[in-house]
Structure formats: C-alpha cells, structure tokens
C-alpha cells in the first residue's frame, strides 16, 4: 500500500499539469479542474489499497479524477462518463480550434482532450474510460481526420 501511495505521489508531481489540463474540459474551468485533481488524488490515496495492479496506476487514478470532476460539477446527479459533454476551456485562446473541437460528438471530444491536453497514450485513455484500446485508436483516427479538415476549412492550417 505504501508503495502504491508513493507511486501516486510521484504521478502527481510528474503529471499534475497534464491532469489539470486534461480534466478541465470536464470540470468546466481550470480552477474547478485543480480542485478535482486535488480531491481525486486524495481519494486515490485513501483508496490506494483497492488498486489491484490490473491495468496501469495512471489509468486507475485518471478514472477517479474524472469521476471526481463530474461529481464536483454535477453534485446532484450521478452522471456516467459516457454522458459527459466536455467543453473547451478558455475558447478565447483559439476560436478556430474551439469551433473545430466543438463540432465533434461529445464522446470523441473527450478522447481528443485526453489525448492532446493530457498527452495520454491510447492504452491509458482506454483504461481511464473503460473502453477498448482499438476503440480509442479508431475514434482518434476519425477525430484527427475531422479536425484536420475543419481547421483547413477554417483557413487556419493545423
């Protein structure tokens, strides 16, 4: 258990910004995302003995952090990750990219955010969302194609 706790701390120290940025579209703001990451890692620490070792520790912590972000944002309802509608935080930074990402279906959008904001490999995304790695790969391939086409049409090349 102490070894798991130490690994959780290491993960936090090395990947905090990726977690915060990756969960921000689910949390709704960077401030809420920070809170979700703090609370999610605290929950992971408290529940560290429940980590079975099946799948990566990072994927397990991501599941907790994502669920925490959902709970903090919608405390009155139990929302499955399938129904989450992630949004681009601070769209003013790049209206064209925002419009391109928002044109994607919500589920595909979430995978895109986890891939590009959190820099997660396909396997970790699959673990975090409890879906197959092949599904992630196929979804990202479609999303990339759509993003490239939309950004091209926007006149702002990727």
């Amino acid at each position, binding site marked *: 258990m102490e070894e798991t706790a130490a690994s959780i701390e290491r993960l936090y120290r090395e990947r905090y910004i990726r977690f915060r940025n990756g969960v921000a579209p689910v949390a709704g703001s960077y401030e809420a995302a920070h809170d979700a990451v703090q609370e999610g890692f605290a929950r992971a620490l408290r529940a560290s003995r429940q980590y079975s070792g099946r799948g990566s520790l990072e994927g397990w912590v991501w599941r907790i952090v994502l669920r925490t972000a959902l709970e903090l944002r919608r405390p009155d309802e139990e929302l499955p990750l399938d129904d989450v509608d992630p949004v681009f935080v601070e769209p*003013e930074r790049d209206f064209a990219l925002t419009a391109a990402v928002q*044109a994607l279906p919500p589920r595909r959008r979430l995978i895109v955010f986890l891939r590009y*904001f959190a820099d997660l490999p396909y396997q970790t995304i699959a673990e975090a969302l409890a879906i197959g790695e092949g599904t992630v790969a196929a979804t990202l391939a479609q999303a990339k194609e759509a993003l490239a086409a939309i950004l091209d049409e926007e006149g702002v090349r990727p």
Partner: protein
Amino acid sequence: MTETIDRLIQARFEAVASPVDGRDWNDVLARAASAKQRRAPVRLALAAAVLVIGATVTAAAFGWPGTLVDFFKAPPAPESVKAFFHGHNAAVPGGVSPWTKLGQAHEIMTATFDANNLPPEHPILHTLYVAQRNGGGFCFLWTGFGGSCADPEDAAKATTTDPAARPLGLESLENDYTGFVDGWIRTDARTVEARFADGTTAQIPVTWVSAPIDAGFFAYVVPSAHLTRADALTSVVALDANGGVVGRQTFALTKPLDEDVMQTLPDGRKLSLPRRAQAARAREIVKSGPAYLWVMPRTGGGSCYLYGTGVGGGGFACVSPYWAARLPAINGGGANGMYFAQVKPSIATIELHFRNGDRERLTPVDGFVLHKIESGTPLVAAVGLDRSGKVIFRQNLRFHAITR
C-alpha cells in the same frame, strides 16, 4: 502523414493549454487525511462579535481558557439544519467510506461577519451548529457561510512540514491577505494564537463544546491593521498547556497570480478576476448599449480583456506575450448576434463577409473588435486588411454561424 497531422494538432492544443503550475501535494495529503468535504466557494469575509448560545460553564474549571458549551443542553438545531447535515452525509463521494450516522445537532454560538466583502460592508449574523457523528467526530455548519465534517483522529495523524504540529481544521477567507479564519481544535490544545508578519501575536477566543464533540470552535476576524504584506496573518497555531505547538496552519503572503479575487473596475463595478488582471487600470474601449469591452494590463506582460454582449454572451481572458505571438492574426468568433475578435496590429481593418454577399468593415480599437451583427444572414468569414487595404488574413467562420 497521419503522424504529421498528429504533431500539428498536438502543437495547436499545447499552444492553448494552461501552463500554470498549481501543484500542492500537502493539500492532497490534508484532504486525504481529513476526508473533509469542500465548502461552498465563498472567498471574502470579515467577522466580528461572537456570542455563545446555550448552557455554558466556565471552561477554566476544566483547564481550558474560554467558554464551555454543554452540547446536550444547547438548543437543538432546526430541521433545515438537520437536513443540511444529512445531505452532507449523503454527499460523500463514491469509493470513500460514508460518514458514520449523524446523531444530535445543536446550536453553539453566533458570530457577525460579512461573507462577501473585504473590508466588510454588510456584516450579518451567522450561527454555528454542530452535529454529532455516532462513530466519532462531528459535522459543523456556519449558516450563510458553509460547513464541513471532521474526523479528529484522522486530523491528528495528518502530516505537516512541522512534525510536531498537525494542520488545524481551518477555513480562511482571503483577498490579498487572510481576513477571516474559523476552525476547530481538539481538547489537547488549550489556546489558539494568531501570528502576524510583523512579529505580533493575538489570542483567539475559543468556545469549547463538551462530549461527545470534545472540541473547541472559533471564528476570528483579522484586525484591519493586519491586512498588508508587512503585518498580515502568517499562521494560526494551537498550543498545549505547556505552550507547545500541537497544531498549525500557515498562510502564504505571496498569492498565486491566477487565483480569482474580488476586484473593482474603474466604473465601480465589482467582480471576481484573477489577481494577475489589473482591473483598477482597465480601460473601457467599447460601450454600445448593453455591450461592453474592458481591456486591462496583465501582470507579467500582455493584456487581459473582459467583454459582455448584453445578450447572454461574453468572456474573459488574459493573453501573455507568449500567447499573443501565437494567436492567429484575427482570433475571432462569437454568438447571439455579436462578433468579438482580438486582432494583431498588422490588421488595420476587418471586413466581415456574409453569406448573401453583404460586407461590413470594422476598425479595431486597441487590438479588439466587439460588434453587433446587423445582417440577417450568417457570417461566413472575417478578412483582415492592412493599412494599404491589402488582404493579409482570412478566417472562415462556417462553424460559427453568427447571425443577428
């Protein structure tokens, strides 16, 4: 090819992701140790007189300076407060053991403070209710402010930078510096002391609550003479009978620039903005009916802007020199019949193109445009012209579909 697209898209995302590092492992440890629930995000307050309610005896008889409230003889909490505590109980997140069953809830004391303004403008009376948890510990609620649950055993085990001290169960209200703290201590402590940056200290009155709560509660207004960097509150410590520190909570004097604080625009309007945005130096560069656009300096370089369309749209952003260099020449978009754009200095004029062939020319003011769309057909592009009238940038807007 796919890899190239992947890298290019990655670069676009990295250019817009926040680089702010808010890592705080001690905060994670404190949350894990206390299993404490979050309060409502109230940020600013100041408190005043505290009035103890119910059957009290002199706590000195028990070796404690302060007042002792007999928990079971204190007035019972109203149903609305009991419902709050039970709701709190139900809000325990998945994967975490729920709080043990709540027992009785009683009214302990009142305090007058302003939970919305610093310095205080409209202080009101807040009441402290405390509820017993049958498995140990307690939950408490300051009406009109917020509540929390505490597990004293967990708190005692929590680690801090000082191995001799545990963190106190404090909540603080801060603007630039801490203006109000409230919290609780266990009965191994005797006194609570506020320590300031100028080396002075002040004792914080504690109201003790008898078994099964066995804890002392306090609400403390930081005096107005201690709200500058030179004399601000730096820590609150709990001392045992021998003067030894058994609990400590510190307050940083250097606040994160990206933390929201209440600020005032030159027109007197108050709003919560990141500390980095210098709202007092804002200039209103567009004011047209209900629409407005303020631009203000950003600490560290660049600028921040705040706009509202008056029809439900608007936004706020800070743009550092780093971001500014990476933005497209026209970074525009909008909704609800309003077009907003931040433009680079090379763009002298923006020409809006509509689907029906209509065109409309706008002149940026200080690098910004906020404009009401008059055309009845969708906006399809924003074209940037330089001073000689030559087209130097085009942003297609098919996906924005902005119409009047």
